[in-house]
């Protein structure tokens, strides 16, 4: 009895070890740092302070009174907004793509899925630099437009929210397509035939049968796009020119440039808390409801 318990524990020990070392421990360190005092030369001084969390919402006046400062809150809102739009765009683009791939003959499907994953083979940073060349004034697109008579700068999107959005959608689209494909590929398309036999036109078939059955994939895809894009910093930094700061770039900035580790850590913790809250709300809303019912 004892022996089997010990061996059972030993069996799962590697999993606990990995989760502990790579998951829990770094988070605890972040949490610890967020409650310390910044060392102006980088790093932290081992003294307790919750100043970092105050700094997130308030500014200290000369006489030490707190003044509400919405600058970081704005960054949060912008990040959430951009992440939400990114997720929506990825879904709108990804759904038809995943559907198309799922309806191909099996041999062709594998090739197409491979093509979807090919961008991962190159570093995201390099791919994002490529977007600079595409989006900038006198860039790839702008130059072509000039050669057919448009004015220089007609197509100059670099350092705009649109550029950031394009970069984010580009970066995270595969994370949407893959789970969508996984759920659509399993789907019995004879159900779509049955629905059209029962007087559902194309749109009703999609709405009543295909989307509800693809829901697990849609949820997974949205999470996989929303969560990383809310903390993204490469696209906002390179394509938004750092002017349009997002949470990811803010955290990066605090650690690398401003040397305010506690504040960077505090923002990270807040970001994580926000994402977890969103997940909890989602789980709550869906609890016991099962799959959406057919309309009644």
């Amino acid at each position, binding site marked *: 009895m004892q022996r089997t318990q010990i061996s059972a524990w030993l069996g799962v020990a590697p999993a606990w070890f990995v989760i502990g070392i790579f998951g829990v421990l770094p988070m605890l360190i972040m949490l610890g740092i967020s409650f310390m005092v910044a060392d102006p030369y980088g790093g932290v001084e081992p003294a307790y302070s919750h100043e970092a969390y105050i700094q997130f919402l308030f500014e200290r006046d000369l006489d030490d009174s707190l003044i509400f400062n919405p600058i970081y809150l704005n960054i949060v809102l912008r990040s959430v907004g951009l992440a939400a739009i990114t997720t929506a765009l990825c879904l709108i683009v990804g759904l038809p793509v995943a559907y198309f791939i799922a309806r191909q003959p099996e041999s062709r499907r594998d090739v197409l899925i491979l093509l979807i994953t090919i961008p991962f083979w190159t570093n995201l940073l390099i791919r994002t630099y490529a977007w600079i060349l595409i989006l900038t004034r006198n860039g790839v697109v702008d130059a072509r437009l000039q050669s057919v008579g448009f004015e220089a700068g007609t197509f100059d999107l670099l350092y705009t929210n649109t550029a950031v959005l394009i970069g984010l959608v580009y970066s995270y689209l595969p994370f949407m397509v893959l789970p969508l494909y996984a759920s659509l590929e399993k789907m*019995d398309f*004879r*159900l779509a*035939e*049955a*629905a*059209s*036999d*029962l*007087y*559902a*036109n194309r749109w*009703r078939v999609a709405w*009543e*049968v295909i989307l*509800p*059955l693809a829901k697990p994939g849609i949820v997974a895809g949205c999470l996989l796009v929303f969560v990383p894009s809310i903390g993204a910093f490469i696209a906002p930094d390179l394509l938004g020119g750092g002017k349009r700061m997002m949470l990811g770039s803010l955290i990066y900035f605090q650690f690398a440039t401003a040397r305010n580790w506690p504040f960077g850590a505090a923002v990270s913790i807040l970001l994580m808390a926000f994402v977890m809250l969103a997940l909890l709300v989602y789980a709550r809303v869906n609890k016991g409801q099962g*799959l*959406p*019912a*057919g*309309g*009644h």
Partner: protein
Amino acid sequence: MKPAVEAKSVSKIYETAGHAPVKALDNVSLAIAENEFFTLLGPSGCGKTTLLRLIAGFEFPNGGHILLQGQDIAHLPPDKRPVNTVFQHYALFPHMTVAQNVAFGLRMLKRPQAEIGDSVRQALALVKMEAYGARRPSQLSGGQQQRVAFARAIAPHPKVLLLDEPLSALDLKLRQAMRLELKRLQRETGITFIFVTHDQEEALTMSDRIAVMSAGHVQQVGEPLAIYESPVNRFVADFIGDSNFLDGAVVKTAKGGALIKVAPNFLIETSAAGAAKGDKVSLALRPEKITLAQPVKGLPRGVVREAVYIGNSTTYMVEIDGGIGVTVRESNSLSGQSHFAVGDRVGVVVEAGAARLLAG
């Protein structure tokens, strides 16, 4: 009266890259009467399912017309046709309850809520599934899912109901019970049924008329009795039930009948006309239409080479003197005993008119 469904010279060709095009249906014409239980029967690949899918609208013909009560529907999408299908694997929506499944068609037709409720109740009552409205399809047995699939297809009161081998996934006992059930439902609803199957027994027991199909052609259309008793060609005779095929020559003809010699001492009288003396012909002869007797003089005689006991009957393989072999099926006697044993010499009795002269 106009036929409920009419196929006029319908052709369907499947083209796949790198393969020769396949003619799934070649110039098929059929007329199915109002309120008929009509069966498309044939082996897999004969085109019966293709024809059903063309009527349902899942596929479109390369040529010809499909008329529903006189109106050409060949190029309407499935949701514009007042035709519903019971699918082979039921295709119930897993994310809906039984009641929502049955209500689906009516909801898409934008019927008023109260009417939908009534129709759903009626349809479920018809298949004796009233108590299961709140269940999910995954909580039902195969037979129950079958019933729900039927209720769902019948609820919008289609003009024609298409059934694509709906019983093939059920076990034997249930399948036999469902045959009677389907027949009852067809009577009670008064809807034209077009039933696709490869199971000849299913076709014979349920249908008003059967179309036997093979290789994209309709071989014969007729009532079960006519299909079984008077097959027009070798394919039909072979596919429906068992047949002995005997080749012979016409030795004598007389007013509507002919005497055909299939072995030196084996003459068979058929009722079919149109054959002239000396013609080489083929005969189909059902095993149960041959009786074995004592090897008395005057009868064609032979030896029992095999005797296979199958409960209610015994099948004998008899080698008739002169070389040809026939299969004979005899009902077993009261005691359950077979009448003959392997090695017995027997006489073979074939009543006049028992054999069919085959065309082609």
